[in-house]
């Protein structure tokens, strides 16, 4: 009986998300104008925004591919205050995966826009050579880090004990830099400035791409965001400056991707959409 009740609640929640709480979803993403954009997925500003529901497709074009579908769709709402544009993505996900470790990935989502608004749009699969796309990528572990998860192994393995880190040993010589130098020596990704390697102050990373396999850090990190785990899944807001040239008379395109970590999704193994019209109302 209990199982049936949980199942029924889950189905009802799915129905509510798909229907946008009674509002009829539109085929395009309509951007509502507001006084000020919010990063809070639970802010009341989102309540009256007309949703768009994108069916998610398997990334089955480029190896390694995702062969079995997981997340069915993502509900999207968009607002702008004329300077910033914010997208609220919500999808169903029973599990909260925000601790990376061997074989264990983290939940995430991404918003993709063409770098230039033009009639001939880039390929929706992360752009193409000469036609760059801009991607803002949110990850559940980054959200946890921003909210205070400690930068130590115990935050991943609570019962871990470690005898000794050279980077925490008192140096023999009088060198105030010795400890930070030792820490960098044993964390080469951080030493090289790999933004992926943390620590970080935003749960969102700005990337650019010119096709599959070309994802690179964007020259400027301008996106912000916040994600919350709901009873039925994730609700994430990603905010960024409004694309240059995006007006009511000059619509753009947008695409989305969702990673369900419990399904082994990471990198190219993801559920994604094609281009969806992005229209300023």
């Amino acid at each position, binding site marked *: 009986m209990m199982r049936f009740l949980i199942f029924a609640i889950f189905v009802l929640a799915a129905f509510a998300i798909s229907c946008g709480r009674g509002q009829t979803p539109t085929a395009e993403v309509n951007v509502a104008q507001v006084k000020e954009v919010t990063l809070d997925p639970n802010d009341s500003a989102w309540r009256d925004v007309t949703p768009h529901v994108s069916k998610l497709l398997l990334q*089955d074009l*480029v*190896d*390694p*591919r*995702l*062969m079995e579908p997981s997340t069915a769709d993502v509900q999207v709402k968009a607002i702008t205050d004329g300077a910033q544009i914010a997208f609220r993505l919500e999808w169903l996900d029973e599990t909260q995966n925000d*601790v*990376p*470790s*061997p*074989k*264990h*990935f983290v939940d995430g989502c991404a918003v993709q826009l063409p770098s230039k608004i033009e009639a001939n749009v880039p390929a929706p699969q992360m752009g193409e050579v000469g036609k760059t796309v801009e991607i803002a990528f949110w990850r559940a*572990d980054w959200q946890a880090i921003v909210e205070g998860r400690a*930068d*130590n*192994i115990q935050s*991943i*393995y609570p019962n*871990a004990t*470690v005898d*000794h*880190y*050279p*980077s925490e040993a008192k140096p023999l010589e009088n060198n105030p830099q010795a400890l930070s130098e030792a*820490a960098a*020596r*044993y*964390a*080469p*990704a*951080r*030493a*090289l*400035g*790999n933004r*992926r*390697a*943390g620590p970080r102050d935003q749960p969102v990373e700005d990337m650019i791409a010119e096709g*599959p*396999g070309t*994802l690179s850090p964007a020259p400027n990190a301008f996106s912000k965001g916040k994600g919350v785990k709901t009873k039925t899944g994730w609700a994430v807001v990603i905010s960024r400056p409004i694309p240059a040239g995006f007006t009511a008379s000059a619509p753009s395109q947008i695409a989305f991707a969702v990673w369900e970590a419990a399904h082994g999704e*990471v*990198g*190219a193994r993801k559920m994604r959409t094609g281009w969806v019209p992005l229209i300023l109302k």
Partner: protein
Amino acid sequence: MARVNNWQLGREMSYWYPESRPEKQFAAVFDTNKCIACQTCTLACKTTWTSGKGQEYMLWNNVETKPYGFYPLAWDLNLLEMLDGQQWSEKDGNHVYDGSTIFESAPAGERVHGWRPSDEDYAYPNVGEDDCAGGVDGGASMEVPHQMAWFYYLARICNHCTYPACLASCPRGSIYKRPEDGIVLVDQGRCRGYQECVRGCPYKKVFFNPMTSTSEKCIACYPKIEEGLSPQCFSNCIGKIRMAGFLNTPDKAQADNPLDYLVHIKKVALPLFPQFGLEPNVYYIPPIHVPTSFTKQMFGPGVDKAVEVYRNAPNDPDLTSLLGLFGSTESIVRKWKRVGDKAIGMDENGKELVNVPFREPVHIRPAYDKLHQITRTNCP
């Protein structure tokens, strides 16, 4: 996929990228018969490279007891089961692999036929230590040959493969093989921690760092290699089981190159699981006391010949002298020769680095000391 030549398989095979061999290929020979599993190599590597946060579980070098030792758990058995039994045949005196490599057997949607270990699989790095293959029942006594009561130690590092599966697996091109020495590295500035390389490497020698969300692996101590020195796990080896160097392809084998001599000319050192198709560059002198039904699966069909050559080493002064050069110097021995009862190790210009007598002088002392009128006990 491109078609490339894999001489270890005796045939061409499919690989993600076209054949592109480095100017010279870093390689090594490990003599399993000399390893005592003291783990000094493991600690030398650990303290040098993996003492940071997120690296706690990583052993770029490990030593495991075969048949029941694994790090990570069942790293070899899992893949062997996935490949589901493969065969070699003989053609014109050469061994040819008739089965499918991990590239050729990759399922739809995958670049490589692989699997990912979970964190639990790394939790027992010395599982199976000193466990015999067969049970030792009450009343059992030592018999030679050992029948089923055998085990041996397998020291493992990254094989810096000619056709790396980690490199083929990475959809971002974050892994590269250095053209100057063939060392395979993960670009720590580019890696995004998808763990595709961890999944693809059949030897499970790429590790995910959960603190930096990037993958890391053995770098063959390339700063030392660039100085003409052996990696830390080589120069710290107590049992002197290892020799580092550079290996040519069989058609370009040089008798004065120590690794070419052992691998191509004497064929006493063999690759680890050549059937996976990566052309790994760490070669093993197989254990001579282990049933070859086991070692053939692990080192390929050349095991019988390798064991025969190794057993005959006392009658082969050249081979004996070269084996004596193992661990004799921290420098990489690029050339060697035997002069009388000495092995001479040289750099690439022929300058002597070390000379090692390979026959120790023998002194026989009579059991009864006439001078002191006393019977000697068996003490040094």
